[in-house]
Structure formats: structure tokens, C-alpha cells
């Protein structure tokens, strides 16, 4: 187990490094002049030159990259215009927001987490529950209704669903408040109220996918020998479904759920834009629109970090749930 963990962590780290190199190349080598994008409006040539100097853009590219990576792990010195010394997870300095990028990230990350985690709990329980019920009652009207829901949900677009939800619940009936973010610790009720539409929209779309998957998994499991054996031994039906079958059917879902949640934590771009919530995704969009390169790089890296970590966690979880994997 220890060796497995070590090997997987190493390859995850390697993947992250590759992503960072790619992102770096993309933004610092590809465009004609990154500074024009980085400098806010009304830039004069002297200011441009100063920014270029401060960013060390005349240094060799490899040196620039190594400096960036060093900043992430141990922090580094930035020029005084960039706030001087930049502490350990240093992601550079944004001239657009006039603050270190890590400050921006710590501000917006809780928003994305607050959107994703409750939504994931909602979509997983709704989706898996629906899939199980429809598999157990295969061929009934209940099953057909669940399949219908799953296929419809999987084809809907988040911005459309979000728009309709906003129109109905906020503007028309006035049940839900206009989406906003309040920190959970400040006021849990307000926190939930401001995000509930985003949760519902995400849950509607994602639970559809999970209902479909878990139904297929459950049907496959139910046709296996060990289920028949358990039934023949006289184990009650509810226990066979709830324990034996569920555990076997849920394993592949763990993989997909982990990857989905990881990807969502990297920024629910469309959700955040649709509901006007300033999370990681919307920050990335804003950064792209204003040409704020350090922030773009940081958001891509953070998102990739979540995806890669999710991959790792999923592999470990898989080994924990499924004893067959551990043996290999």
C-alpha cells in the first residue's frame, strides 16, 4: 500500500509539473507580448518597460519558469511594486487586482467549495438513490420515469437550467434570494439561501448522469452469482440490495464521482457565471478577459491540482473499498 501510494503520488506530481510547463509556455512564449495584456488600461511605454523589468521578462524562459516554481514551494522575492517578498505558495502578483494572486485565490476558493461540496452531496444521493430504485424496480413505471429524468437531465445545459430556475424562483415567485455568497461561519442560513439555486441546478444535471450509471451498475451486479447465493441463503431482500449489491455496484461510481468533484472544484465556470458568483471559475474568466496572466496561470494550476489530487484520492479509495484491487 505504501509503495503504491508513493508511486501514484509521484506520477501525480509529474503530471502537475507537465501542466505547469504547458501553461507557462502557453502564456509566456506564445503571445506576442504578455505585458500589454498584463498592464491595465492607459499604459504608457515607460510603465510597460517597468512592468517588463519587474516581471523579469528579459530573463531566459527557463529561469523565469524555475523562479515561478520556486515561488510556489518556498516563496520568492518580487520587486517592491509587487509587494516585496512573496510567501510560500507564491503565484505571482496581479496588476489588475493589485494584490498577490494567492490572496485572490484564497478569497474565491471558498465560494467554489461552497458551491461544489453541498451540490455533490445532493447529486450523489439523488442520483445513486434514483438509480438503485429504478434498478430494483426494473421495467415498472418508476423505472421508466427515472430513465426519462436521467436522459433529460443529461441533455440539459446548465446556463439554460440556471436561467429558468432564476426566472421562476427568484424573479417570478420570489422564493429564492438573488444568488450571492456569505461565508458559512458568518451566517449559515444566508450561506445556504444564496447558493441553493446553484446547488439545485448542478444537482439536476449531475444526478441524471449518476442515476443512469448506478442503474446500469446495479443491474449488472444484481445478475451476479453472489447475489443469488445471498438470496438463497435467506438473507432478506432489503439487506441484499442495501449491503451486498450496493457495495459492489458503487465502486465504479466512486471513480467517476471523484473525478467529477475534482473537476468541479477547479472552477464551476458556467455555474458561477450563470448565477453571478465570484468563485474560481469566474475569476479565471475575468482574468482571461482582462489579460491578467499571473491569475490565469494560477487558476489553471489550482484547477489541475484538484483534478490530479482527485485522481489520486480515487485510486486510494478504490483500493480501500474493493479488496480485489489491494491484492494486485
Amino acid at each position, binding site marked *: 500500500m505504501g509503495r503504491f501510494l508513493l508511486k501514484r503520488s509521484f506520477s501525480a506530481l509529474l503530471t502537475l509539473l507537465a501542466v505547469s510547463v504547458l501553461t507557462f509556455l502557453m502564456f509566456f512564449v506564445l503571445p506576442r507580448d504578455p505585458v500589454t495584456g498584463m498592464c491595465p488600461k492607459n499604459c504608457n511605454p515607460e510603465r510597460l518597460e517597468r512592468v517588463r523589468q519587474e516581471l523579469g521578462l528579459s530573463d531566459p524562459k527557463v529561469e523565469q519558469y524555475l523562479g515561478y516554481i520556486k515561488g510556489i514551494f518556498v516563496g520568492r522575492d518580487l520587486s517592491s511594486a509587487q509587494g516585496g517578498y512573496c510567501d510560500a505558495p507564491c503565484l505571482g502578483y496581479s496588476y489588475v487586482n493589485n494584490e498577490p494572486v494567492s490572496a485572490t485565490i484564497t478569497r474565491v476558493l471558498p465560494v467554489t467549495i461552497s458551491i461544489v461540496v453541498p451540490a455533490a452531496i445532493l447529486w450523489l444521493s439523488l442520483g445513486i438513490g434514483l438509480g438503485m430504485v429504478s434498478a430494483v424496480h426494473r421495467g415498472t413505471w418508476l423505472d421508466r420515469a427515472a430513465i426519462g429524468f436521467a436522459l433529460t437531465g443529461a441533455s440539459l445545459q446548465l*446556463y439554460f437550467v440556471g436561467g429558468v430556475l432564476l426566472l421562476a424562483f427568484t424573479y417570478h415567485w420570489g422564493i429564492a434570494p438573488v444568488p450571492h455568497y456569505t461565508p458559512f461561519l458568518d451566517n449559515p442560513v444566508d450561506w445556504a439561501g444564496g447558493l441553493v439555486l446553484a446547488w439545485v441546478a448542478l444537482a439536476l444535471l449531475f444526478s441524471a448522469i449518476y442515476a443512469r450509471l448506478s442503474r446500469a451498475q446495479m443491474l449488472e451486479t444484481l445478475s451476479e452469482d453472489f447475489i443469488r447465493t445471498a438470496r438463497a441463503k435467506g438473507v432478506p431482500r432489503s439487506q441484499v440490495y442495501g449491503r451486498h449489491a450496493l457495495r459492489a455496484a458503487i465502486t465504479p461510481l466512486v471513480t467517476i464521482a471523484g473525478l467529477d468533484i475534482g473537476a468541479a472544484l477547479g472552477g464551476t*465556470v458556467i455555474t458561477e457565471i450563470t448565477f453571478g458568483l465570484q468563485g474560481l471559475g469566474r475569476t*479565471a474568466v475575468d482574468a482571461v478577459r482582462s489579460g491578467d496572466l499571473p491569475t490565469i496561470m494560477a487558476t489553471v494550476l489550482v484547477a489541475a491540482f484538484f483534478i490530479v489530487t482527485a485522481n489520486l484520492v480515487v485510486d486510494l479509495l478504490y483500493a480501500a473499498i474493493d479488496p480485489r484491487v489491494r491484492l494486485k
Partner: protein
Amino acid sequence: MNATRGPERQLEEATLSSGPSENRGGTTVAGRSPAQLTWLRLRRDRTAVISGVTLVVLLVIALAAPLIEWMYGIGPQDQFQHALDRYGMPVGPGGGVSGEHWFGLEPGLGRDIFIRMTAGMRTSLLIAFAAATITSALGVVAGTLAGYVGGWVDSSIGWFIDVALALPFLIFALAVVPTVSLRFYGPREAVPAGFQVAVIIGIFAVFGWAGTARLVRGQVVSLREREFVDAARVSGAGLGHILFRELLPNLWAPILVSFSLALPAYITAEAALSFLGIGVLEPVPDLGRMIERSLGYLQTDPAYVFFPGITIFVVVFAFNLFGDALRDALDPRSTR
């Protein structure tokens, strides 16, 4: 033979019986190829038929957009400002729905929604088909190579797959598309629509091949050790022959299914890019950008939101249904 059975039922029985073709009820029945079997199964599946017909209709609408334009008598760029009130909102029920403007008019510019939607569908479908074809081709080549050759080729391709899957698609696309445009065209120059479309397809290709490659690799690894591959190798067949003549024919089913499910995924993704403002640019009509524009009128002109929103839902829904039905039809184990 039982006279009450229809001819199709007999055909299916003939295919399933492993013996030589028999003469039943006066008609000669030959064995059927897997493709014919699939076609037969698809035709029997009500969902497949309905979604298939819907898709054909949508494709015809998309392909015949110029013809429809000519018959409808309105172009996608024509503005009907006189049909708007002084606030720029369309007059009449459902956002200005009338005999002349079937789905009403856009607020502000006063362009016809119906004709912009047919034209927008053409853009979306073109991009989706091109992207799905390219990613499938790349994925199949990379996947078969990795799976068959193994060793360092496998590990390096596998690593590239990991990296491609670890990149956050939307954020990366968001950053790359404007950067690439800026590289070739200055900030003041207009980016030609064709170039933008090519960049979007390219972005999909960079990200999309990994999924197919992983799928194909898994299939190839399990096929590699089979006797027919050994037989080909022993008889001196080259790598190309084994890959394309021996392995590929066995991979058609999963490739076809992943292709058909990739289409709606790319339609969705392209709409998402346009929604974020980095997809196809004005004045080329596009479904995603229509929705993005329309959301600003959510309270004042809901009909404007609903027409493109429902259209894109129907397109994706039909593709998803058909993809599912195709999967069932191609799966010899499925009981239908």
C-alpha cells in the same frame, strides 16, 4: 412455419440459427453481417427510430440553411427595427412571434430568431462533427499504438493521456483561444470566422483525443493476446496490417458509440465556449452565443431565452438517445 409470424421475425431467427441458410416459407435467407444485424436492431427500437428521424431532420435543416433562408425570405443578418418598440423590445406575444417571424425577434438588434437558429445549428453541427472525427481518429491511432506496442510507447502515451485529462478544459480553452487569435491577428484586427472555428476545433482535438485513446487502448490490450492476432503475426504480417486489418475491425463498435456520444458533448462544449464569449464570433450565428445574449433579457423577454435553449436541448437529447440506442444495438449481449 407459423404463419402468424412476420417476415422480420423469421429473418432474425434465421440470423440467430448457426446452421446453413435454409429455405423458409419460400424466401431464401442468407446469413447476416454484424452491420446488418445492428441495422435490424436499430430499426426495431422505437427510441432509435424516433431520435434517428429527429437527427436526420435536424441535419437537413442545418445543411439546407441557405435554402430555408431563401424560402423564408429573411437572412440571419436582416434587422427589423421597425417591429421593435421604442425600448428595443419586440412587439407581440412570445417575443414577437408572428407569421412573418416564427420564433420572434431578438431584442435590441431585431434579427429574426428562427433563421438565426437554423444558421446557428449549422455552425454547431459543423464544429461538433469535425471535432468528433478528428478526436476519434487521433484517439484510435494513439490508443491502438499504446495498447499494441506496449512498453515505453504505452507508458509515454499513457502519460500524455493523463496530462490531457488533468488540464481544466474550460479555463484552458478560455486562456488559449484569445491568445492564439492574438498571435495571428492583432488586438485591433477582426479575426476571420473560419480561423476562430479552426481554433475551436483544434482545442477540442487537443483535449478530446485522450478519452477515446484510453478506451481504445483498453480494448486493444485485451485483443492483443487473442489467437487471430498471433496467427497474423506468425504468418509474417506487418505492424500496419495487424493494427488496421486485424485489430481495427474489432474496435468499430466502441469507436462508433464513443463517436456518437462525443457529438452531443462537443455541441454542448462549443455552446459553452460561445456562452463564455470565446466561441464563434459575431456576426456568425451560433446557438451558445444566442443563449448568452438572451440571458440578459431573462426578465424582460423570456421567450428569447426559451427558443434557443429548447432547441439546443432537443439537439443534444436526440443525439444522446441515438447514441444510447446505438450502443444497445451494437452490443451482442443486449436483450431487446
